[in-house]
């Protein structure tokens, strides 16, 4: 078994996670992420289990809230927490058009 991920494999995983990595991190994580992926491989050795799944361990039926308007926060209070905002709007950078380095 190889002991580290290839650069491409690691960058693929980082892309899935939307995290940019430094060169130093790439080198370190090629080994660390591989180790963690090897750990989870052990699940393949478990046999004889039941197909039924436990998504979360609560023992009661899920109960939904009644569909009515409850307590609300002041929109200003919430919007103010955004790094960039203007009035009651949150500002975001351009979504289409300019690409990196353009």
């Amino acid at each position, binding site marked *: 078994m190889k002991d580290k991920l290839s650069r491409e494999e690691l960058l693929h995983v980082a892309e899935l996670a939307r995290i940019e990595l430094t060169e130093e991190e790439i080198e370190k994580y090629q080994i660390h992420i591989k180790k963690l992926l090897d750990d989870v491989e052990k699940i393949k050795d478990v046999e004889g*289990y039941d197909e039924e*799944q436990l998504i979360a*361990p609560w023992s009661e039926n*899920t109960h939904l809230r009644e569909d009515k308007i409850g307590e609300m926060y002041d929109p200003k209070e919430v919007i103010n927490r955004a790094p960039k905002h203007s009035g009651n709007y949150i500002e975001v950078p351009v979504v289409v058009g300019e690409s990196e380095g353009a």
Partner: protein
Amino acid sequence: MRYLNLPLVEINKLLKEKKIKPIDLVNEAYENIEKHKEYNAYITLNKEDAIRQAKELENKEVDNLFFGIPIAVKDNIVTKGLRTTAASHILDNFIPPYDATVVEKIKERNMIIIGKTNMDEFAMGSSSRTSYFGPPKNPWNKNKISGGTSGGSATTIALRDVPIALGSDTGGSIRQPSAYTGIVGLKPTYGRVSRYGLIAYASSFDQIGAMTRNVYENALLLNTIVGHDDKDLTSSKKENEDFTRLIGESVKGKKIAIPKFFVSEIVSKDILDNIKQVVKILEENGVIVDYIDMKYVENTVTLYQIIAMAEASSNLARYDGIRYGYSYEKPNNIDDLYVKTRANGFGEEVKKRIMVGSYLLSGENAKTYYNKALSIRDDIRKEFKRVLNDYDWIMGPTTATTAYDLDDPMDDPSKSFLDDVLVMPANMTGLPGINVPIGFGKDNMPIGLHIMGDSFEEAKLYQIASFIEKELKLDLNPWKGEENE
């Protein structure tokens, strides 16, 4: 005179008799914290507000046991108007616009929040060393870890800065640091305490619980934070109850199972000797203790890694630099904003877990890893339920070793998971678990016993834990010498 070392009921009596005021307690708490500054138990103190609150309470009737009592709150539980960081750079400027449900509950009782305690970043780790604010130090030896992830809460309780604290437990994060620092910590049954306002890491494991100096006060504090909450759909509709009600009841004729894996060669001899001592005391008092085989127990870490990292990758997708928290200043476009905000905002442990989690959920992997883990998880729960049909409790050590050195290397990415191997089954199954101190190792560091019970049987956990506590009569205050200052 120091008051915060007294039992809660005595402090309450003094308050009622107007011999002391809440402000005396608040001042004492901050004096303690100042004196113990180097232990780094807190990320943010709430001094101004706490003093204001204490003064307001002077005109109010002392209407409950927790009135005016200083409490420490783990920094992943949101507090309105008080910075809440989850020990991450990505939230280090975050002032929540609302209170977590547990915070509303402690405020209703007029407890006074002293500060927000240090922890592993987003509760990912096992030694609190992944904190953006540096790790807390163990009160029994400054060169050792306090454990994690609720390391700050454990530290401040062990130091006797304040009598009560809240922690959270996803894979052992209340119980393991409690063991390393010699305090009592209980992870309630999943659903017992509302998770609303607890910054999510792995939602199907996360649970808030009490961290205290002794068993009785732990039960008292749990009394105040439980209950159904419409804002958490996984919170139980079970009736509230008095968790102290079985404390002092006989344990004669009760049955305890010790899974052989919990006392296997993975555990240090020092700890095994202490466990044997407890077993002896229990047997002398008519408790039946059996060593049993349990299926899947040794697979818990693998399952935890898969499920926790998968849930984490989904939960932490919200940190995008747009709505709140840290944001990269000069992005070229929105993708650039995401990847650079997260690159600068998250620490190493968090990045690794999100990356592995994203991988585990991508395409066919979801079936191979995540779905299979959920199936085995169901089997583990059935296995524990089976054993708990025959036994009152399942018991073992909380940790395999005592607290290790703060400067031990962090170069093995699996280590932070393996540290919690003995306590993760409680999160996997949703069952309650408690740490109770049972002695000290040859290194003079505390050793903890872990006891699990059936769903919603916290009262029974307190019964056995309190019995053991009473039999052992340990001196668990590392600051004994200071008392006479």
